[in-house]
C-alpha cells in the first residue's frame, strides 16, 4: 500500500515542477519590466528560496523552531569558500590557513559536496543534543540550543581569522570567478522543492509530523521521534548547505555577518509568512517577503510608484529610511504570529489540491458497511504465539504519594479484562507503567517471554501493546484517514504479518463519511472511535483502553462496547479496559480486576467481583450503606 506512486511521488514532483515554473516566471516577468537592475533581486530571491525550503524541511515537519539553520549555512558557506577559492586568492586573505587548506582547490560542484559533508557531520552532533533536550524539556530547550549554535558559528567565524579571514576581510573569490550563470541555481531550487515535498510525503516525514502534532501519542503508537527529527534535520541541513554555498558563490565573498541574525530573521519571516507547514507556503512566503522588502527599500530611497499608486518618501525624511526594511521584517513576523500564526497558506499544498480536484470525478467505493460480519480487510494476522500480558509487584511513587503499591495483573490473548476502581485508585498509572510512560520504582511486566519493564514507549508499542488515552490524543491536523494510515505505516515496518486495512477500520469505526475531515473537527464520539481504530491499525496483541466511553450516554456506551469487542476479535487482540463505571465494565469484560489505593483487592468474573464483600466495601461502600 505504501508508498502509493501517484499520490506520494508522481503528483508531488509534478506539483513542484509547476510551482518552480510559476515562481520563476514571476521573477523573469518582473525582470523584463525592470531591466538589469532587477536581475540581482531575482537571483537573490531564487537562492533565498533554496535556503528557506531547507529550513522548512526541519521546522515544518518537526514543529521545532530553529534559529540555527543560518549557523549551519555559515559552516557550509565557509567550507565551500575555503575549498572553491583559488590558492592565490587565499594567500592574500588567509596565508596561515590550518590543515594545509591553503593549497586545496576543488571545482565548485565538489566544493559544495564537501560543504554538505562537513555541515551534515556537525548537524549530526548538534542533532543528538537537540533531540535529547527536546525530549526532556520540550521544544523550547531545543530552540535555545539552535540559537546558541547561531552565535557559536558567528563567534568562531569572527575570531578565527586564519581560517575565515576574520570580521573585516572575509574570504573573496577572484574578480570574475564568482558564479555568473543562473543554471545551477535553477537546478538546485527545483531539486530543493522536490526534496522538501518528497520528504513530507515520505514515511519519515509523516511520522515526524505525527510527533509534531502529539509527541506522546506518536510514541504510544511506536514512533521514535528522535529518529524522525534527526532525519529531518540532516536532510534539511543538506539543502541549506547547498543554498548557502550558492549564496557565497553568487556573492563572490563571505563575511561572518552574512550568515547571522538579520539573515535568520529574513529567512524565518519568509517561512512563517507563507506557512511553515507547507512547501508551497514556503515558496509563497519567499515571493511575498521579497516584494515587500523591495518596496520598503525603495520607500527608503525615494518613494515608489506601482500601477499609478505612488508613495512619496519625502514625509519620511526625519527618520533613517534605509532601515525601513528591517522594520518591515520585524512587523511582518510579529503581525503574522499574533494574527495568523499558521501563515498565509497553513498546510495547503498545490499538489494535494490538484490531487483532490482530479479525484473528485471518480468517487471511492465504500467498503462493506458496518454489519455483523466484519468487512473484508479488517482481519489481521500478526503472530503472537499466545503471549500473555503479565505485570506484577508494581510500585509507583509521586513525591510522597504512593500511586501503586504492589499492583499486578495478567491478561490472556483474546480475553477482555476490565480494570476498575474509584478515582485515584491508580488505574491510569498502571496503564502508564505498562506503556512505558511512567517509570515504576519497583515491579516488572512482560509480554509472553519478552521483558518490557525498562523499554521505551515506542518499543513497547512495536511489541504489540497499543493504548488509547483518557483525554484523547489524536493527530489533530491530520485527517481521519491519515491518522489510521500512519499507524499502518508503523505496523508495516515493525510488526510483521498481515495488518487490517485502513479503510476497513475506518468503515468499522463508522467514520467512512468523515474520512477526509481533520481529526480536530470530529465530534467527541467520533474522535473516541478514531482513537480506537488508530490503535487497532497497529494489529496489536493487546489493546489498552483508558476510559473509552467517558462522557458518553448509555446508548453510545453500549454501541462502543459492541465495537470494541468486534474490532478486537477481528484484529485478534486481547483487551484491557479501564473505567470507573461498574455497569460498563461488567458489560464488556470476561474478567475484572478491582484496584483500590494502589492495590488489587479482587479478581474474578463480573459476578464474582460484584459479590465480593471487599469490593462492596471499598468501591460500592457508600451505595450499599444507603441501601441497607
Amino acid at each position, binding site marked *: 500500500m505504501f508508498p502509493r506512486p501517484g499520490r506520494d511521488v508522481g503528483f508531488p514532483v509534478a506539483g513542484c515542477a509547476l510551482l518552480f515554473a510559476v515562481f520563476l516566471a514571476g521573477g523573469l516577468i518582473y525582470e523584463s519590466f525592470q531591466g538589469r537592475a532587477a536581475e540581482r533581486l531575482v537571483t537573490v530571491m531564487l537562492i533565498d528560496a533554496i535556503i528557506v525550503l531547507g529550513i522548512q524541511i526541519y521546522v515544518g515537519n518537526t514543529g521545532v523552531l530553529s534559529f540555527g539553520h543560518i549557523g549551519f549555512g555559515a559552516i557550509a558557506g565557509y567550507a565551500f569558500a575555503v575549498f572553491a577559492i583559488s590558492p592565490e586568492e587565499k594567500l592574500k586573505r588567509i596565508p596561515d590557513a590550518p590543515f594545509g587548506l591553503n593549497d586545496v582547490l576543488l571545482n565548485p560542484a565538489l566544493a559544495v559536496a564537501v560543504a554538505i559533508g562537513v555541515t551534515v557531520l556537525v548537524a549530526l552532533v*548538534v542533532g543528538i543534543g537537540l533531540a535529547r533536550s527536546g525530549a526532556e524539556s520540550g521544544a523550547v530547550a531545543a530552540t535555545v540550543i539552535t540559537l546558541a549554535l547561531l552565535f557559536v558559528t558567528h563567534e568562531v567565524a569572527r575570531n578565527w581569522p586564519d581560517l575565515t579571514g576574520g570580521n573585516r576581510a572575509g574570504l573573496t573569490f577572484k574578480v570574475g570567478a564568482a558564479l555568473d550563470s543562473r543554471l545551477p541555481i535553477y537546478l538546485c531550487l527545483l531539486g530543493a522543492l522536490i526534496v522538501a515535498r518528497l520528504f513530507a510525503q515520505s514515511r519519515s516525514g509523516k511520522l515526524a509530523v505525527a510527533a509534531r502534532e502529539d509527541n506522546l501519542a506518536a510514541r504510544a503508537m511506536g514512533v521514535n521521534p528522535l529518529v524522525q527529527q534527526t532525519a529531518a534535520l540532516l536532510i534539511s541541513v543538506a539543502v541549506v548547505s547547498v543554498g548557502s554555498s550558492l549564496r557565497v558563490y553568487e556573492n563572490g565573498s563571505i563575511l561572518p555577518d552574512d550568515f547571522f541574525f538579520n539573515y535568520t530573521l529574513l529567512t524565518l519571516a519568509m517561512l512563517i509568512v507563507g506557512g511553515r507547514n507547507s512547501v508551497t507556503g514556503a515558496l509563497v512566503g519567499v515571493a511575498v517577503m521579497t516584494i515587500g522588502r523591495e518596496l520598503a527599500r525603495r520607500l527608503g530611497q525615494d518613494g515608489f510608484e506601482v500601477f499609478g499608486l505612488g508613495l512619496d518618501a519625502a514625509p519620511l525624511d526625519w527618520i533613517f529610511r534605509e532601515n525601513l526594511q528591517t522594520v518591515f521584517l520585524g512587523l511582518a513576523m510579529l503581525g503574522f504570529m499574533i494574527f495568523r500564526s499558521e501563515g498565509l497558506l497553513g498546510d495547503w499544498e498545490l499538489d494535494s489540491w490538484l490531487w483532490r480536484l482530479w479525484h473528485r470525478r471518480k468517487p471511492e467505493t465504500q467498503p462493506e458497511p458496518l454489519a455483523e460480519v466484519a468487512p473484508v480487510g479488517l482481519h489481521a494476522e500478526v503472530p503472537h504465539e499466545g503471549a500473555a500480558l503479565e505485570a506484577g509487584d508494581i510500585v509507583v511513587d509521586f513525591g510522597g504519594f504512593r500511586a501503586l503499591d504492589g499492583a499486578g495483573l495478567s491478561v490472556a490473548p483474546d480475553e477482555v479484562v476490565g480494570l476498575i476502581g474509584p478515582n485515584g485508585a491508580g488505574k491510569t498509572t498502571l496503564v502508564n507503567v505498562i506503556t512505558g510512560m511512567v517509570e515504576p520504582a519497583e515491579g516488572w511486566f512482560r509480554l509472553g517471554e519478552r521483558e518490557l519493564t525498562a523499554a521505551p514507549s515506542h518499543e513497547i508499542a512495536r511489541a504489540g501493546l497499543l493504548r488509547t488515552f483518557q*483525554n484523547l490524543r489524536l493527530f489533530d491536523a491530520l485527517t481521519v484517514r491519515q491518522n489510521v494510515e500512519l499507524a499502518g505505516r508503523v505496523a508495516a515496518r515493525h510488526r510483521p504479518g498481515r495488518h487490517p486495512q485502513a479503510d476497513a477500520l475506518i468503515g468499522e469505526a463508522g467514520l467512512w463519511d468523515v474520512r477526509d475531515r481533520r481529526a480536530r473537527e470530529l465530534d467527541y464520539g467520533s474522535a473516541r472511535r478514531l482513537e480506537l481504530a488508530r490503535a487497532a491499525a497497529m494489529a496489536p496483541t493487546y489493546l489498552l483502553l483508558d476510559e473509552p466511553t467517558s462522557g458518553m450516554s448509555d446508548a453510545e456506551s453500549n454501541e462502543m462496547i459492541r465495537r470494541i469487542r468486534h474490532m478486537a476479535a477481528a484484529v485478534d487482540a486481547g483487551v484491557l479496559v479501564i473505567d470507573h463505571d461498574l455497569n460498563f465494565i461488567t458489560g464488556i469484560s470476561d474478567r475484572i480486576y478491582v484496584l483500590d489505593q494502589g492495590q488489587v483487592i479482587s479478581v474474578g468474573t463480573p459476578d464474582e467481583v460484584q459479590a465480593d464483600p471487599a469490593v462492596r466495601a471499598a468501591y460500592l461502600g457508600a451505595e450499599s450503606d444507603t441501601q441497607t
Partner: protein
Amino acid sequence: MTELAQNLIDGLGRGSIYALLALGVAVVFGVMHLLNFAHGELITVGGYVALWTLGAGWSWYIVTPLIVLSAVLTSLAIERVAFSRVRGSSDFTLLLTSFGVHFVISAIFLLYVSASVKPFDRPSWVTNTYSVGPLNIEVYDTVVIVVTVLTLIGTTLLLQRTMFGLSLRAAAADFDTARLMGVRSDTVIRGAFALSGLLAGIAGVFWLMRAGSISPSAGITPMLKGVLAALIGGLGSLRGAVIGGLVLGLAEVLLRSRLPDSIASLTEGVVFLLIALLFIFRPQGLVTVKHAVRV
C-alpha cells in the same frame, strides 16, 4: 591560588548580572511558558534613556532609577501590546512573537537614531580597584555583587512572603490549577512582567555602566546570556536560573584566563560547546524541574 581567587571574584561579578537577567527570563517563563527573546530590549531602552539623560547633563544617581523604571514600563508595554494576544498559543508562536518584538524594538531605534554606536559617560568609579592582600578587586564588581545579593533577598521575600509571590510561584508550578484556585491570571502575568522588567533594569544599569555605549543591537548579548543561563539552570526553575547565571559567568571568566592564547579569543565558542555537552548528558539542565504530563 591567587589567580583562582581573582577569577572567582571576577566570575561572581559577571555571573551576578547574568543571574539577574536569567531570573527575569525564568519568572516570565514560569507564568506564560514564554521564553522572552525580547528581554535584552529592556536594556536597550534603558540604554537610550541613559544616553539622552546623561547627555543632558544629569548625574548617574538620577539616571539609575530612570533606567530601571523604563525597563519596567517597557516590559509591561510589550506584554500589553504583544504577549497578551498570544497567551496560551503554541511554543512556536510564543517564541517567534518574542523574537519579533525583539526586532521591532531594535528597528524602531534603527529608524530614529541609526545603527551607529553612541557613547556616554561612565561613572568615574567603574574602573577603580582596591586591594585585599594580593587580590585586585574592582569597585564595580563589589557593587554588582552586593546589589545582586540584596536584589535576590528582596525577590525571595517578595516570592515567599507576599500574596503576589505565592500566586506567582503557584502559577509557575501549575498555571491551570492556580487559576482554579482563584489566582487572577492577568494580575499574576503583569506582575511577572513587571518583576522581570525590574530585574532586567537593575542588571541593565550595571551592563550599561560597564559598556559606556549604546546601539540598537545592544540587547542581543544580554538577552542571549540571560536565556542561556536560564536554560543551563533548568527552564522553569527560579533557583536554577540564578545558579545558571553564576555558573555561566564563572565559566566564561575561568576559561578566558585558562585557555591557551591561540584559542582564548574563541572563549564564547568553547562555552557554547560546553553547554551543548551539558545538554547531551543532562538534558534537563542543572536543576531538575519535573514537568508532569497528564495522560
